[in-house]
């Protein structure tokens, strides 16, 4: 059995509300990403461009001075500016065509390759008054003066780079936070909605189990769910009315016809009591009596089913010991089974209590045993099994019922073609089903390989689903 927490998570992930929440989260994350990306570009990009522009401007100025006033002037300017920046906040270097140092505040050309845009990024050592030397990053641009002299102008950008990376981290953290909050919101949102849908599902399951009086709770929020619940409830009212109507009709017919049938039988019985002379008359009367009794039997069975379906017998439910009930039934049917050459056995725990109507449950199981004994050929084996839950099954190794026919035989008056010749009214299983439903259970027919296995499953619906 799968872990319950996993099952519940799986269910949550399977809901459409959760999927919607996920889509919403994706869109939300995309727009947050775009916004933060723009912020990043606008702040750190602006700083980058500002630095680049001042460096370019300085290079242009120096190149201009070279052209008008010559190398010496440039060397002088470089020396002045280098002196103004002893801590290398700005970086200058002037070399001859052979790469020898002429002026500047770094002693040689940095050993890095320029990037695609011609920028060099390299570390410089910075010594401030009473602090040890620090390696800090700088960016610079080179410029070749006519005559082969090379000029390097740069800025120390360590602080700016640190700030940029801080901003980047903050933006990424913000994005992650957005995702987490969105996901949590999705969970909460979908769980809230799921609860309403669950209420509807719970009710429908009770109704499917036969309790048609159940209605979906209305929260009073007048939202779509309340509207749905109200509509479903109205539909259920309608179905219940129709079913009750049908039940009443069946009930009335059975009641109304029972009285004249009873009189018919009484009349025949009285006639037989007068001991008619002619054997033929007697035989005719006896046959008529037999037919009347078959009809009465069918009506009685219909009324039994109607009564079980009406659920009024729930008032007479009481805790009863299943092993004793089973033992009594086995006791009742064992001689009959033996006479037919069948093995009748029972299995189950020695103690198991069920809240039920003893007469109806016994009658339902008796019907199942009756059927099993009737349809299992001599030498067969029939077993009555009780499992915790409880699940009560009657199985045989007779001919069984083809899978295609199984649903069909549960309908009223349905009998399999090959059984037409045997006595019975086709209502036995309908009564068993009505009794199972009355007790909140479910009847299933299965292949016993070979034979038929009829189970009455009284476990709670959720337990039945997980099994």
């Amino acid at each position, binding site marked *: 059995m799968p872990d319950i927490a996993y099952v519940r998570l799986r269910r949550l992930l399977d809901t459409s509300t959760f999927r919607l929440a996920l889509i919403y989260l994706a869109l939300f994350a995309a727009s947050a990403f775009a916004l933060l990306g723009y912020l990043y570009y606008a702040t750190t990009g602006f700083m980058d461009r500002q630095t680049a522009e001042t460096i370019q401007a300085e290079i242009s100025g120096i190149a201009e001075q070279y052209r008008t006033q010559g190398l010496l002037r440039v060397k002088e300017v470089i020396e002045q500016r280098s002196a103004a920046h002893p801590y290398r906040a700005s970086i200058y270097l002037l070399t001859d065509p052979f790469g020898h140092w002429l002026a500047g505040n770094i002693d040689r050309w940095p050993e890095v390759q320029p990037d695609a845009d011609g920028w060099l990024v390299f570390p410089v050592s910075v010594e401030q008054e009473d602090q040890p030397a620090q390696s800090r990053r700088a960016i610079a641009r080179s410029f070749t003066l006519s005559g082969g002299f090379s000029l390097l102008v740069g800025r120390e950008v360590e602080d700016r780079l640190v700030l940029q990376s801080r901003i980047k981290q903050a933006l990424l953290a913000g994005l992650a936070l957005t995702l987490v909050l969105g996901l949590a919101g999705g969970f909460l949102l979908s769980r809230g909605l799921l609860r309403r849908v669950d209420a509807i599902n719970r009710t429908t399951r009770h109704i499917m189990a036969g309790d048609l009086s159940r209605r979906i709770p209305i929260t009073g929020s007048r939202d779509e769910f309340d509207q749905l619940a109200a509509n479903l409830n109205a539909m259920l009212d309608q179905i219940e009315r129709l079913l009750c109507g049908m039940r009443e009709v069946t009930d009335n017919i059975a009641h109304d016809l029972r009285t004249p049938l009873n*009189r018919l*039988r*009484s009349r025949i019985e009285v006639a037989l*009591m007068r001991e008619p002379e002619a054997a033929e008359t007697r035989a005719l009367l006896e046959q008529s009596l037999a037919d009347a009794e078959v009809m009465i039997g069918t009506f009685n069975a219909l009324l039994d089913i109607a009564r079980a379906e009406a659920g009024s017998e729930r008032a*007479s439910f009481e805790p009863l010991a299943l092993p004793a009930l089973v033992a009594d039934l086995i006791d*009742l049917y064992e001689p*009959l089974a033996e006479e037919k050459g069948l093995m009748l056995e029972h299995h189950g725990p020695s103690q198991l209590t069920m809240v039920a109507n003893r*007469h109806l449950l016994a009658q339902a199981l*008796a019907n199942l045993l009756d059927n099993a004994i009737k349809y299992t050929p001599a030498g067969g084996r029939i077993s009555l099994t009780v499992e915790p839950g409880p699940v009560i099954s009657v199985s045989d190794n007779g001919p069984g019922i083809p899978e295609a026919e199984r649903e069909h035989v549960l309908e009223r008056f349905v009998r399999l073609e090959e059984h037409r010749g045997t006595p019975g009214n086709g209502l036995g299983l309908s009564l068993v089903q009505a009794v199972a439903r009355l007790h909140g259970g479910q009847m299933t027919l299965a292949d016993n390989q070979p034979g038929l296995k009829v189970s009455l499953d009284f476990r709670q619906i959720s337990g039945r689903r997980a099994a």
Partner: protein
Amino acid sequence: MMPGGRSHQPHQLHGDRRLAAGPAPAKMVPMHILVIEDDAEAADYLVKGLKESGHGVAWAKDGRDGLIQAAQGGFDVLIVDRMLPGLDGLSLVQHLRATGDATPVLFLSALGEVDDRVRGLRAGGDDYLVKPFAFAELLARIEAVARRPKGAPVTTTLKVADLELDLLRRTASRGGKQIDLQSKEFQLLEALMRHPGQVMTRTMLLEKVWDYHFDPQTNVIDVHISRLRQKIDRGFDEPLIHTVRGAGYCLRASETAA
């Protein structure tokens, strides 16, 4: 379900009964019976049938009339419909019982739920029969309630001919020979022996021995009886358990032995 009329519906083809033209049911002791039933036609057939069976019958068509007639006394059994105009069957019987009248009562009812049965018996009824019923079932039940020993003398042994049942030691013997019986067989024999010479229908036996108020579809009781016969009657000249055609079973000594 209730002991409705289906008692022998599924047993139509049971050879046992078809062949047993057998001795007529036990010597019938004529009884004086009051039928309290508002449905004139149903009452008519009840009265006819009972007269046909040799009983004296009076008819009351509503509850008040029924109570007046019943209170005058002299009846062996009252057959009371539960639904009556004027005074319903339950109240009628409660009135009678309140005045100390212990005349056996058989309720008739169109209601079949177990609760109804319990309510009927609690009100002072001795038995309960759901319409529609077979006349044979009604006859058997009236006999059983009418001849129920009054004041319930404490009996510890039952005896019919040479068959003896010790209720305390739960043993049975016939002609001094011990007979081994299983628990349900003993109860079945006890039910028959408590009403010697009376017809016990299959539903009555099912009620008394198994406390089931429904009719199994097959001849389960017949098989139990035939097992019991094997133990009681086999090897003896005189059979004690008799099949009563169209009704049920009867335990009695034959005329000569009686």
